[in-house]
């Protein structure tokens, strides 16, 4: 779309950095500002930047999956995280916590998995709209 050398060069590294940052935001969300919603939006912004620099089709290729698949998978993940409590005989969406923190991630819980679902839905839906309005057919 906008053939700028500076944008193109920076978009490559920014994509990786922003995606890493979005995952960081997702993981720290439970105790500090962040969370799945912000993380998902950040990741979507990263891909949108890439689409601005290189066009929609290359951005699709980097994502590999269709945005709809990402959004659908996110909904499934969130619902499954909620349903996990049913197996333990608790009500739907009750948080289950793994007692020991894992290195690099922190405490793992069904709540975190739910937030991953939110992340994926926000990422998938936003990109679905951005790519669609971007105008190029896949």
């Amino acid at each position, binding site marked *: *779309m906008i053939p700028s050398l500076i944008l193109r060069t920076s978009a490559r590294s920014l994509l990786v950095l922003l995606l890493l940052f979005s995952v960081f935001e997702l993981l720290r969300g439970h105790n500090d500002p962040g969370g799945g919603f912000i993380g998902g939006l950040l990741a979507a912004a990263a891909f949108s930047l890439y689409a601005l620099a290189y066009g929609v089709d290359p951005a699709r290729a980097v994502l590999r999956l269709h945005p709809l698949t990402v959004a659908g998978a996110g909904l499934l993940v969130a619902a499954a995280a909620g349903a996990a409590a049913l197996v333990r005989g608790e*009500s739907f969406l009750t*948080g289950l916590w793994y007692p020991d923190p894992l290195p690099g991630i922190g405490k793992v819980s069904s*709540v975190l998995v739910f937030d991953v679902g*939110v992340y994926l839905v926000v990422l998938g839906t936003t990109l679905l*709209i*951005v790519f669609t309005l971007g105008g190029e057919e896949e």
Partner: protein
Amino acid sequence: MGYDPTPMIDPMILAVLLPFAVVPLAPALARALGRWTGWVVAVVPAGIFLSIWRWLPIAPGQVHTTVYSWVPDLGVQLAFLADGLSITFVLLITGIGALVCIYAGGYLGSDPRLGRFYAYLLAFMGAMLGVVLSDNVITLFVFWELTSVTSYLLIGFDHHTENARSSALKALVVTAAGGLALLVGFILMMIAGGQLGLDGAEAGRLSALANVDLRGHGYYPAIFALVLLGCLTKSAQWPFHFWLPAAMAGPTPVSSYLHSATMVKAGIYLLARLHPMLGETWLWNDFVTFFGLITMLLGAIGTVGQKDLKRILAYSTLAVLGTLVMLIGIGTEVAIKTAVVYLFAHALYKASLFMVAGNVDHETGTRDVNVLGGLRRLMPFTAAAGTLAALSKAGAPPMFGFIGKELLYTTQISIENVGAWLILAALVANVALVASALMVSVKPFLGRLQETPKKPHEAPLSMLVGPVLLAGLGLLRGLQPEPFENNVGSAAASAILGDTVTMKLKLWHGVDPSALAVMGLSFLTLAAGYWLFTLIRARVSPIGGAMRRAAEFGPARWYELALAGLYRGAERVTRVIQDGYLRHYLFTILVVALVVAVWPLVQAMPLELGVDTVGWRAHEIVVAFLVLAGAILAAVLRSRLASVAALGAMGAAIVVLFMLFSAPDLAMTQMVVETLTVILLVLVFYHLPPVVRRSGAASRSRDLLVAIGFGALMSVLVLAVAAVHPAKDVSEYFLAESYPSAHGQNVVNVILVDFRAMDTLGEIAVLAVAGLGVFALVRLRARREEEGS
């Protein structure tokens, strides 16, 4: 280990849940088992049948109840109740259901849609069982509407034909609309019973409503009218009868199931169930009897002149449904007993006859009685089953149907004043039923063999089990009715009457005058029916043509006119309020919001505004100025991209505001959202032509006025909200509980993913659907342009 007599799961819960549980497995089963699918799927209803069968004999007044706590936090419970009436229905639904499953396997053969068919059929079965076992009016309503939805899928199974689609829609519109009336009726019943707002096991319990004097309540006429509307539509009573003959567009196994024991009997079931609560008033007696009587006559006369086997059966079903409704309307002890016998007899012979008609259709390729004849040698078992079932339908001794018809005449004779007229009506209806029974079972099998589209031979075993068993059962229960009356008959009649009664059925009533009169009427019916049969067999087509012309003025036509009018009206309204101009939508939304919101504000005058004049700091004023400047620039700039940039600047200033007031989560989200919005707008505007100013000064100043008004409204609202000090305990609770019970220090996120996770789940679902909507709209447009060019 010894034998444990208590089952693991309550049979009623099993009955309602098992069919639904097997639904998702049906396609895989059909793929794996092929032509044996029917025999295997039949295990589901057969299992339910047996688990309920263990409760027999059930004594009058005896009930089984179970309460399953569904959402304990909200006090929502599923309550099920089985008495004689429910058990009669469960046994019919599952017994005939099992036979229909087997039959459909043979009928559909190697159809690739077999799996889908069984999925629909099982879902329908589960819904039907839910209707007859629910003791809670709300769950009853849910299952009631589920039967409408699933029957829509079944009737429209051959959805590639226009006829099947419109017929299925007809059934759905009529029965689901009636269901809505029913819901209002149920809610009024709960209000009248003082049950609304109760939680748990008490709310909406039918068995609890039975102890309330609903008939004396001021709402009674409304309750009665609404419930009646639901039952009349479901059971295809005049003037809603027209969906039933149209529903013959479904495959024959569907007709056999829906129109013998299930769908159309749901209305009968509910009338019977509510009879002790709502019956025995002049409203009930007059209106229920009236609609039943009209439907009975209309159906009976309708059978004459039909040449399609299934349509003959459809109209005779109408006649029987009308008779049942009429009997429940009369509501005396003998009438109710008659209804129970009639219901049971009809379920047996009608399911059997539909299957026989299906066999004939399947093996000869036609259902036209005019071209059928002489099949008895080629299809001996089908012919035998058809003859037995038709004899029961005609009410010939010693079939079970004979007992039913005798009782019917006994009921009519026992009524004073109008008894003679009712006898005449019943006589007319039964004569027509005899003629139609002969038409369906004698005409195709006797006489000379005729040329048919396919070379006929006997149907496979799977298609013979059902009709032979059901027809045979009709003969057996006629010869020996005691097991029926002892096991369920008396209990069912008692449940409908709300009183303990015993049923004594017999073929031969001795020689007292009224018994002789009934006997005389019975044989008069048979003789007149045979005479009518000989009269019409040669003249089917002209009579049918005349009746179709008469039907042009009937309710079916009203339905079509109403539907066409609705479509036209909807189109007109859509054209007016959805003209495709975004600015008109915005204008409407803002003006409506202004009008709706300003009025309560004016009433609340003088308003207390939360204006804090103390802490104005210099940088805050700068940020506020930036927000304002961005907004104004976005409105006045001529270039779209410049406007977008101005909007982005405004958003960035708001981000700074959030940061100043220590809301980092909000600030971050706002930042990313602003970025994405700008990207999106740029992407969209990239495709648009340059701005041309088309609007005149008048409309521009009008828009300005609305914009200022709305801006002022929002400002006042924000200030007014700031003045209110909300209950602190909610936010304090979240702050206090965030770490101890949810292990998180970021309260905002904890609320999103834990405390209010259900809301979040709903929101992301909406988000995904909205994205899908954008995707579909743009793609659709792109494809249309491709096709256009």
